[in-house]
């Protein structure tokens, strides 16, 4: 545990990738495999099931510190992180010493062991740890307890460290870290096995992710070297069809079996193959994402829903065919195979994502203008002679999205952020004008620069009308331009409208509130583009 706490401190104290990488390699080299397995699990962003809710922890904290609930709450809002708040408030004048025991023992006994206890026993255990642990270890303990630990290490960096330590290709390590795994010593040791074994046949390959195209597309060279497809707005998925079963994985590596029965049924007559694609709500054409959300939100799928919102798997790529890894073959070969495999299936729930053909870039750009009517987000551009890579690698796959919709909205409420935005007002509720009133239209958390955030924070603190717990209502004076990807009717919002992926595009310091958009204007957008 102490070694992991030291690693954590080292990672936390630097912004340099090389220093982080060296620290990770040293830790993985020296730690017992069972500890290293847990470290991989945690640092790669896996979450353990939360054992004790944050409200319960705050209640215990108030009791243990003899502070009133409101002051614990204020302090938490100020610090912006519950695990850290606990470690700060529980720090006493007493000397506390380094922590004994391995990380694995700690997690399996001190954390997961809580499962077997009733609430009173859980509380006694947790409080004893809070009183005994030095601050950094107490912070880590609480992070594990609340199920999330972020320390500025990406999964890619963990993969690089492991690949470097084992002198193996990173792609192989990436494959072994994907999907579900148990953090055991055996798992960690098997990561470095030079033999490719297929015992985890239902496991997905790492997804290849596209980068946004920033310049003009003609900088990419001859259009004939590229495959253009629509950028579909559904759920990116990997479909694994094998003789002994079918698996569906999301891009976030969640298993999705059972959620889309029509796709699994259609996969039954595929040859043994692994496909990359998109799950879309579709009747005769793609349905708005709001329909797809109905499918995502339900745990059990009723017949009515299956009838009203059927889905299909629109295939982009072939990663494996008849047990051969096709990822290193050029896209044009993979595409030819995909067409051969799927061409004769007609209106089946597994289809091919059609190519968008144009003679030159200007004509393709014209087609892209149809995106909003076609309910797609723009175009994808894929280099025809490129392999299927892992992760977000620039150069071969570009997303050429259409410009987002924007409105000018008024800042109405603000709330402090968390993590590195703790103690800064960064979570905004934005409104549009409706006569003399303001109607909230969206919440947005990102898009301003650090300098702008500081400046707006300063303004917020001096222009607060009322405080409701952590939330401040503000004088309606600041106009922020918000960009969003889609607009839908929503009975759950007061405005009757929901925006998809709202974020702040610009702080319109030049614009008076009287020139901000009105609810009427937003409703016009809904009529034009709302699904």
């Amino acid at each position, binding site marked *: 545990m102490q070694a992991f706490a030291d690693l954590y401190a080292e990672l936390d*104290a630097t912004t340099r990738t090389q220093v982080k990488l060296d620290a990770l390699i040293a830790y993985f080299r020296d730690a017992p495999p069972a500890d290293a397995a847990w470290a991989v699990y945690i640092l790669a962003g896996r979450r353990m099931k939360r054992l004790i809710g944050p409200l319960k922890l705050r209640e215990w904290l108030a009791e243990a510190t003899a502070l009133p609930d*409101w*002051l614990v709450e204020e*302090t938490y809002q100020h610090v912006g992180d519950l695990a850290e708040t606990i470690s700060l408030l529980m720090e006493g004048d007493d000397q506390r010493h380094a922590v004994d025991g391995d990380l694995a023992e700690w997690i399996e006994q001190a954390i997961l062991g809580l499962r077997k206890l009733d609430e009173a026993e859980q509380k006694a255990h947790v409080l004893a740890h809070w009183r005994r642990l030095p601050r950094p270890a107490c912070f880590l303990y609480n992070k594990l307890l609340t199920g999330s630990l972020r320390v500025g290490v990406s999964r890619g960096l963990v993969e690089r460290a492991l690949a470097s330590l084992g002198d193996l290709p990173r792609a192989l390590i990436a494959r072994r870290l994907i999907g579900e795994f148990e953090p055991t010593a055996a798992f960690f040791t098997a990561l470095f096995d030079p033999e490719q074994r297929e015992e985890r046949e239902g496991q997905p390959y790492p997804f290849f992710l596209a980068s946004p195209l920033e310049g003009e597309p003609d900088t990419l060279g001859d259009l004939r070297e590229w495959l253009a497809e629509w950028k579909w707005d559904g759920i990116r998925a990997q479909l694994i069809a094998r003789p002994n079963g079918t698996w569906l994985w999301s891009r976030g590596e969640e298993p999705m079996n059972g959620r889309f029965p029509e796709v699994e049924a259609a996969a039954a007559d595929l040859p043994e193959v692994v496909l990359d694609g998109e799950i879309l709500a579709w009747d005769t054409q793609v349905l708005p994402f709001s329909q797809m959300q109905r499918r995502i939100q339900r745990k059990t799928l009723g017949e009515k829903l299956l009838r009203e919102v059927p889905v299909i798997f629109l295939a982009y790529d072939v990663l494996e065919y008849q047990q051969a890894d096709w990822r290193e073959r050029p896209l044009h070969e993979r595409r030819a195979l995909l067409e051969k495999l799927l061409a004769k299936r007609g209106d089946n729930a597994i289809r091919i994502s059609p190519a968008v053909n144009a003679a030159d870039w200007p004509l393709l750009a014209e087609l892209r203008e149809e995106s909003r009517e076609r309910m797609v987000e723009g175009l994808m551009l894929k280099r025809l002679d490129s392999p299927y890579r892992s992760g977000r690698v620039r150069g071969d796959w570009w997303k050429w999205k259409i410009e987002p919709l924007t409105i000018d909205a008024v800042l109405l409420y603000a709330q402090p952020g968390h993590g590195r*935005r703790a*103690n*800064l007002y960064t979570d905004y509720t934005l409104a549009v004008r409706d006569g003399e009133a303001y109607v909230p239209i969206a919440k947005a958390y990102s898009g301003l620069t650090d300098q702008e955030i500081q400046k707006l924070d300063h303004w917020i603190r001096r222009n607060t009308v009322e405080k409701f717990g952590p939330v401040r209502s503000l004088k309606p004076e600041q106009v922020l331009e918000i960009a969003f990807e889609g607009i839908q009717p929503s009975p759950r919002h007061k405005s009757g409208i929901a925006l998809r992926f709202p974020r702040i595009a610009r702080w319109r310091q030049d614009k008076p509130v009287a020139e901000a958009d009105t609810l009427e204007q937003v409703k016009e957008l809904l009529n034009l583009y709302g699904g």
Partner: protein
Amino acid sequence: MQDPLIIPTDEGLYCPAGDFHIDPWRPVHTAVITHAHADHARSGHLHYYAQHQSVPILRHRLGDHPFTGLAYGEQIRFGRTTLSLHSAGHVLGSAQVRVAHDDGRVWVVSGDYKRDADPTCEPFEVVPCDTLITEATFALPCYRWPPVQQVGQQMWDWWSGNPDRPCVLFTYAFGKAQRVLAALAEHTDRTVYLHGAMVALTELYRDAGIAMLPTQPVSELPRTEGMRGQLILAPPSAAGSPWMRRFKNASTGFASGWMRIRGNRRRRGYDQGFELSDHADWPALLATIRDCGASTVLTTHGRSDDLVRYLRESLGVDARALTTLYGGEDD
């Protein structure tokens, strides 16, 4: 009910019975200055009263004005009041202002203060009073400073552990920088290099007899000097400025009470945060309120509202927040 001895006005805290202001932010006739930080000491007043160690610093920062230096505990009459200054332990020459009315009431304005050890200034003195006007910069229970020796050790570990890189430590130029120089003298006698904004202030501390590490202005070195393994002190405003360019591959740190919160440290992007503050932490605020025996507490700066609510609801102390213009988030 008697009129309050000290009231907030547009000019700043004002004592009607003695006709003087304390740390006023607009020009007044008589200004009693608790210490020489910019949000407390401004130019343009006709008469200045301050602790005598504070006077050279005030003169350096504000130019020449009619300053009257007082010793700690020295009494001076203003109208129907007797005024005296008492050590606040914040920076060199920092003072609490004790105002005793002829009718027997005693009020104390704490100014900024701390109760932790600091070899660069006199320790905080507990001044019994009826009403205490206290700062509340760090008035949340998450603020509890580690022992200064521990922070000094962390700074030395960082400096001595980076023999191949310049270590640039950002601190406020007045008070904190000198405290760092004194704390590090327990570990080494090496020379520390100073940003121009700190040179004169550090000399004023030396003139006052404060023992610190030897220093040299960065500007006296040839620009080609890479400063590997050296410690450089600079004000936070130098972070990210062209001045930093000469320190290739520098490791950076910031010494401030705000560094106790991880989010603050990460947001500012420093490699190291050192929890070193010249303000009272939560336990020190509560201890001071208890020790001085005040029946009424008025608060200024920072987390005033939270301290007031806690004092009223949990400790049963009569407390209220005063509105002041002390910027006060600097530490």
